[in-house]
């Protein structure tokens, strides 16, 4: 197990390093002269040089890279060109929206997908199984933002039960914050569920055809008992992996849903900064997101190691 953990840790650090180089080169390299981009077409060469100098952009690229990494390690994510605000402050303020949204969306998705997917697997070939397969097939085809629009049309505009957008700070009114998260979480969760149902279904189906499930019944479990006690434990292995892979998907969904419901989350901030060509802010935020995703995948791998004894001893 120790070797397994070590290997995963090395991969984690290596992945972050490579991703940081890639992001840095992509943004600095493909973006051309950052200062010129930021100041726009009408800027004088003097103004560009002055801005470049004040942000250290006239130094060699690798110096800038190490400077950036060093600052990030010490918690300094840089400053905005326009407002000179600290990126770290900008980001933390937004996380109180984005993290509850993404996490609740994922959890809702799992809460729906695990029982429904298991049910679908047990009813393969029956009409109810076929209907479920079709529903999840359609659900996969629904863009998350359209689900959001439709839900806000129904519950917000037509019925007037919930806000169609906007945000109430947790500190102002926790209940208000929750109310403004209900529809976003519902849209995100339903679409996640549609994707996850298919994975749960095939994972459970796979386990149901395994010999050890038959053995469990052969020594005295009922069909249901065997599925719940032996099957789900084994089906959780591929599911853990899938959830890890879905994290990237989840973040994409969160970005869009924040826009649909005008939530002031991290991704809305990113979008605004992309539009404003705030290169440093984009670069640091992107890096944070990537560290988060790779970190979640590290956790997933470690969890897998705990759940599956075979992984521990062979890899």
């Amino acid at each position, binding site marked *: 197990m120790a070797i397994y953990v070590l290997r995963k840790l090395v991969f984690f650090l290596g992945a972050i390093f490579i991703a940081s180089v890639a992001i840095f080169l992509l943004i600095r390299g493909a973006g051309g002269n950052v200062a010129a981009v930021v100041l726009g077409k009408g800027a004088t060469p003097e103004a560009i040089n002055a801005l470049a100098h004040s942000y250290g952009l006239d130094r060699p690229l690798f110096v800038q890279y190490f400077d950036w990494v060093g600052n990030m390690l010490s918690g300094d994510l840089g400053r905005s060109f326009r407002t000179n605000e600290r990126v770290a402050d900008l980001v933390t303020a937004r996380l109180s929206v984005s993290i509850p949204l993404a996490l609740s969306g994922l959890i809702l998705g799992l809460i729906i997908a695990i029982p429904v997917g298991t049910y679908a697997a047990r009813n*393969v*070939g029956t009409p109810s199984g076929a209907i479920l397969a079709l529903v999840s097939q359609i659900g996969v085809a629904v863009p998350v933002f359209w689900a959001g629009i439709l839900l806000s049309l129904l519950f917000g505009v037509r019925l007037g039960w919930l806000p169609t957008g906007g945000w109430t700070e947790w500190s102002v009114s926790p209940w208000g914050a929750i109310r403004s998260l209900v529809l976003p979480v519902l849209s995100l969760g339903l679409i996640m569920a549609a994707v996850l149902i298919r994975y749960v279904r095939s994972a459970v189906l796979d386990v149901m055809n*395994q*010999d*050890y499930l*038959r*053995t*469990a*019944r*052969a*020594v*005295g*479990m*009922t*069909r249901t*008992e065997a599925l719940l006690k*032996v099957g789900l*434990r*084994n089906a959780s*292995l591929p599911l853990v992996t899938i959830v890890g892979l879905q994290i990237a998907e989840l973040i994409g969904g969160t970005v869009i849903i924040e826009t649909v419901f005008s939530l002031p989350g991290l991704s809305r901030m990113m979008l605004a900064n992309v539009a404003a060509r705030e290169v440093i802010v984009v670069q640091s935020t992107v890096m944070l997101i990537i560290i988060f995703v790779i970190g979640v995948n590290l956790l997933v791998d470690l969890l897998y190691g705990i*759940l*599956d*004894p*075979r992984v521990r*001893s*062979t890899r």
Partner: protein
Amino acid sequence: MTQTNPGRANALEVRNLVVHNSALTAVRGLDFTLPAGGRMGLVGESGSGKTLTALSLMGLLPMGWQANGSVLHDGVDLVTQSDKALSSRRGRTISMVFQDPLSSLDPVRRIGFQVSSVIRRHTQASQQEADRQTLELFRQMSLPRPEQLMRAYPHEISGGQRQRIMIAMALACYPQLIIADEPTTALDVTVQKQVLRLLNNAVQERGCALMMITHDLPIIAAMCDMVAVMYAGRIVEIGPVAEVFRTPRHHYTKGLLDSQPTMDNIALDGSSRLASIPGMVPPLQSLPKGCAFHPRCAAATEKCRTTIPTLEGDQRRAACWHPLGAEAAADAEVKAQ
């Protein structure tokens, strides 16, 4: 307890067992009796319905398959029992050893837990007591270092050891009947014998009945006192092992026996005359009319093509219109008419 009496009831009484799904009928009317403590071999090629027969006895048929007829065991008809009622018998009065021990054990649970939980499920034993019994079973199965084995996972031990664990699991609650479905096919030749010997000893010690499913005739000759030969979902011949193997009545049985390599019919110079049965096992959805074996049978006549022969006889039964070794008797019968 009644089942430990010498004069106890049969371990299994199968009457007109049919196993089918919506499209196919794989087992087409089986009749046999397995006495308490008796040991019966079930032979046949793949696709003859052996495994489905075994699974139907356990109530473990795959989804979509269904059994009809009656299977009397321990005073109840297994066919009519609910999954719940059957589950309380499985592992207790009737248990099964499967073909592939690696895929048959839960990969994420420790071996000791898997065996002891069977004991705890069917008896009042405490965890401690169940663990003690598990260790004892491991010793009986001649498993090395049983204490360490308790904490091992299935992938950490050898195939032969895994199958011995499976046998220990099957034996754990002293069942009246053990069904072994090709228990050594997935094992190395070198450990097959050892596993079979352990199974044989354990079954004899406990006086439990054994149903051995295999296509390996020598195994049946060594371990069983009765044999049933299956072809295309039916028993074509059944009787005491020695008699059936020495003087087969059904042409299919004879074909099977002739196609077994022995020291006599294998010649090292390449002039072997190992017989084979012409043709292939017919697919279930297009079985020939009459005797299912007739397209491959040299002795087939018009009658064989139209009418299914029934199992005739008492102890020794064969489903054939022209049984081997009976030509003379048959001729006499025709003349008498």
